[in-house]
């Protein structure tokens, strides 16, 4: 067992200067496989790993101790799966950086990043948790500013690290509140004291943890760094970051809600409600921004905000159910959200890898320059299609299953006795449904504009297919999507054993057994179920029936297909300028939700000669939607804070007299204070 653990650590940190690309990523792949093996073993055997090495003898409760139980094993599984495919993918991807930057630094930082994530999920002590937590953000910060020539990357990096640091400050406050109750920093003591926390501290700890981990996971008010940091990182890193790092944030949230702040009284329901509201609003806002974005990586980053919102929605529901003692429903909601986090890690990783190879091929991330790549990069477009279908939650693949579970959880919220909760969860389900609808629309745009129709720029024309290693990486992730979609029992059993619900609760986990959700209200009993394998069989049979019918119907005449140019309404040859671009495609959406985006379009005309304004040389219309959160919430508060700082700064006046005056005032003030003090 320890061997396993050392196995994951050793190769991760190893970096070999000479044969860079291979040497740094092969150990990464091997070690992530080991992580997968370790977590699978823990999940199956349900046993617990424990290891601890104290840092300071004098303070026993402060040690680097590790504890791998079901929950951490489940998240380790996610990390392992995605990092295996990403490290295989980055074997090919580093070619893109061959000339400009040292591959060695990229390789070692990536290893460090994955290592710190694995360790975060394994720690058992608040101090070591924070240590690895910030190590993770430090490694990802260095990766974000990897291409540090571009000024925008630097700013994104700074915002990212400062935001995560604020998040860590909240988490530290939460842990130390627990420390003040229990007197020790180890998670075991937190767990043992979970029961008898005073209600006041319990709420405070919960809110602090929600804000802290929310910043890392990218919940709405604190999501500002996400759309900036992910696109500026190299693609294989942003695949890891949005696929897995956000999940570590969720891991923290799960750890706090389930272990330390166990919701056991109706009073805690409002905590769950807070999560539901935060989740659904961040889902809605994330997808709204994603649907209008024309930079492919920013769109995917915004989309991560949306999926995280769904996961937190599921968590919130489980907290609400738990606080009313509805164990079965709580397990269902938790299953839905954990399953969704597993799915999201897989298909978001796949999509970012796809985006990476597209960016590598065309050299730009702006979708308006792309188009027609499916002909030149057939494999990448296939994988991207698989990813889009999965993320949009369409039937055959895994996205649909987790969304089905979340919907069932939402639908069964009627059993919550409190009416206010029922209604608010109902309204949250509207936001959720709107998100699902918009997600389909976003990915039509994302996939359609990038891969279909005619190439819109020179670069898109000569885009070359991604190197073989990248494709292998993507096949790994793609096949995972399909497997998780078709055989949901694989994931459900993993989640069940991870979170320790007893098997019978949700459904019988036979390989082909359907996922069933019971319904019993005002006298009507029904069991709605979904068994993907049979659905697949049906689709296959329908297809066969159709082909048979087509063959029979056209027995006589053999129809042939001719290729001819698209019908262009008799305007003469179409060139790519008349094509729909990403921005135009999302224009109806923008007008419908204009109160949210408040797009301001600026039209500037260029004239041949200043005298007559009638003959226009060119009219360019630029319209971009402003970041609502940026203007209303962040910049004003930032300016106010900076203004305060500015005033404090003034005391360094530079004159000796004023310095001496300060000393005089302080002496007299303190003397008066001391004399007055009893």
């Amino acid at each position: 067992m320890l061997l396993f653990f050392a196995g994951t650590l050793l190769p991760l940190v190893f970096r070999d200067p000479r044969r860079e690309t291979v040497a740094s990523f092969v150990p990464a792949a091997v070690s992530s496989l080991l992580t997968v093996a370790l977590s699978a073993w823990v999940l199956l055997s349900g046993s617990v790993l424990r290891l601890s090495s104290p840092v300071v003898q004098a303070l026993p409760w402060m040690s680097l101790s590790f504890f791998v139980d079901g929950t951490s094993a489940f998240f380790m599984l996610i990390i392992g799966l995605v990092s295996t495919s990403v490290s295989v993918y980055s074997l090919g991807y580093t070619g893109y950086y061959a000339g400009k930057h040292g591959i060695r630094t990229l390789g070692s930082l990536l290893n460090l990043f994955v290592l710190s994530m694995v360790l975060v999920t394994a720690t058992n002590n608040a101090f070591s948790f924070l240590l690895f937590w910030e190590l993770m953000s430090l490694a990802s910060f260095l990766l974000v500013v990897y291409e540090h020539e571009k000024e925008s990357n630097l700013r994104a990096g700074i915002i990212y690290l400062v935001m995560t640091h604020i998040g860590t400050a909240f988490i530290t406050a939460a842990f130390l509140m627990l420390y003040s109750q229990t007197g020790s920093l180890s998670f075991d003591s937190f767990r043992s004291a979970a029961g008898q926390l005073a209600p006041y501290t319990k709420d405070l700890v919960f809110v602090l943890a929600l804000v802290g981990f929310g910043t890392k996971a990218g919940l709405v008010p604190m999501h500002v760094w996400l759309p900036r940091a992910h696109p500026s990182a190299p693609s294989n890193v942003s695949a890891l970051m949005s696929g897995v790092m956000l999940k570590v944030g969720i891991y923290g949230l799960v750890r706090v809600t389930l272990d330390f702040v166990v919701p056991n009284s109706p009073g805690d329901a409002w905590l769950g409600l807070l999560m539901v509201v935060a989740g659904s609003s961040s889902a809605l806002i994330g997808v709204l921004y994603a649907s209008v974005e024309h930079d492919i990586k920013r769109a995917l980053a915004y989309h991560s905000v949306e999926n995280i919102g769904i996961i937190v929605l599921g968590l919130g529901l489980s907290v609400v159910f738990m606080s009313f003692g509805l164990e079965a429903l709580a397990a269902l909601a938790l299953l839905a959200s954990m399953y969704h986090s597993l799915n999201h890690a897989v298909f978001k990783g796949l999509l970012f890898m796809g985006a990476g190879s597209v960016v590598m091929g065309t050299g730009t991330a702006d979708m308006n320059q792309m188009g027609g790549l499916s002909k030149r990069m057939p494999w990448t477009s296939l994988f991207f299609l698989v990813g889009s279908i999965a993320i949009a939650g369409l039937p055959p693949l895994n996205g649909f299953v987790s969304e089905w579970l979340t919907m069932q959880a939402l639908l069964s919220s009627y059993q919550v006795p409190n009416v206010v909760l029922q209604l608010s969860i109902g309204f949250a389900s509207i936001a959720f449904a709107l998100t699902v609808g918009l997600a389909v629309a976003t990915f039509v745009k994302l996939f359609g504009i990038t891969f279909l129709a005619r190439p819109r720029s020179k670069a898109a024309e000569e885009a070359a297919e991604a190197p073989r290693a990248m494709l292998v990486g993507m096949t790994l992730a793609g096949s995972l999507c399909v497997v998780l979609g078709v055989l949901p029992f694989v994931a459900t059993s993993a989640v069940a054993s991870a979170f320790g619900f007893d098997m019978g609760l949700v459904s019988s986990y036979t390989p082909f057994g359907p996922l069933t959700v019971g319904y019993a209200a005002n006298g009507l009993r029904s069991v709605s179920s979904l068994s993907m394998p049979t659905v697949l069989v049906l689709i296959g049979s329908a297809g066969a029936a159709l082909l048979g019918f087509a063959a029979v119907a056209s027995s006589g005449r053999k129809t042939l297909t001719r290729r001819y140019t698209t019908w262009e309404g008799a305007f003469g040859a179409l060139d790519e300028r008349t094509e729909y671009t990403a921005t135009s495609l999302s224009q109806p959406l923008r007008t419908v939700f204009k109160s949210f985006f408040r797009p301001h379009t600026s039209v500037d005309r260029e004239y041949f000669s200043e005298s007559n304004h009638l003959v226009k040389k060119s009219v360019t219309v630029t319209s971009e939607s402003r970041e609502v959160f940026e203007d209303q919430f962040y910049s004003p508060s930032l300016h106010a804070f900076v203004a305060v700082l500015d005033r404090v700064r003034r005391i360094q006046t530079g004159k000796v007299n004023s310095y001496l005056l300060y000393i005089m005032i302080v002496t007299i003030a303190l003397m008066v204070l001391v004399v007055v003090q009893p």
Partner: protein
Amino acid sequence: MQVPLPTLLTLTAVALLLSTFGVVVRRGFAGWLSAYRYQSVILAGSAAVIAYETGFWEIYVAAVLTLVVKAVIIPRLLVRVTESVRDEFKIEANPFVSIRLSLLISALLVALSYGLIRETLSSASLGVFAVAYLPVSLSLFFIGLFVMVSRRMALNQVVGLLVIENGLFLFTTALTQGVSLIIEVGILADILVGVMISALLLLRMSQTFDSFDIASLENLKDD
């Protein structure tokens, strides 16, 4: 003639306060120097009185030392340093606080130190010297500090510093009848070296800024 001790002590205390007010009033550098020299002489006198009363021989040595260092060496040092600088820089043109106001403030400070001492240490059983000299030394400290704060010329700040040092010396001799001699010598050495270094600085300052005005010393700040 056997002058009763308490009146003698109050007499020297009053003389000390008068000399400090002299420092506050004078505008020109020469004026300050003479006031300072006068103050150091009285200080040495009072130290001698304490030594006579308590019979510790170390205090005599300390008194003589202060007399030599503070009354003779330091003033000559300052005069030699400031010879090269033109006269008008040695006059305090317009201090932050007008002379009259600064007089009032120093009186206030004296009252403050007396009040403070009575308020805090009334309970402690103070020796006869402490009763007389403690508030004086504290007021010396505050007035010295006030002089440094309110004056615009660098020279004045040195003089303010020296007034504070005098207050210090009085404080130590009055309270504990003189700490062990080595420490006394150490303190005096520190003061001497301090004044030498500030003289060096003044010299260097007059070469670069060719004026002692503090205004030129303000570019190191957070604009």
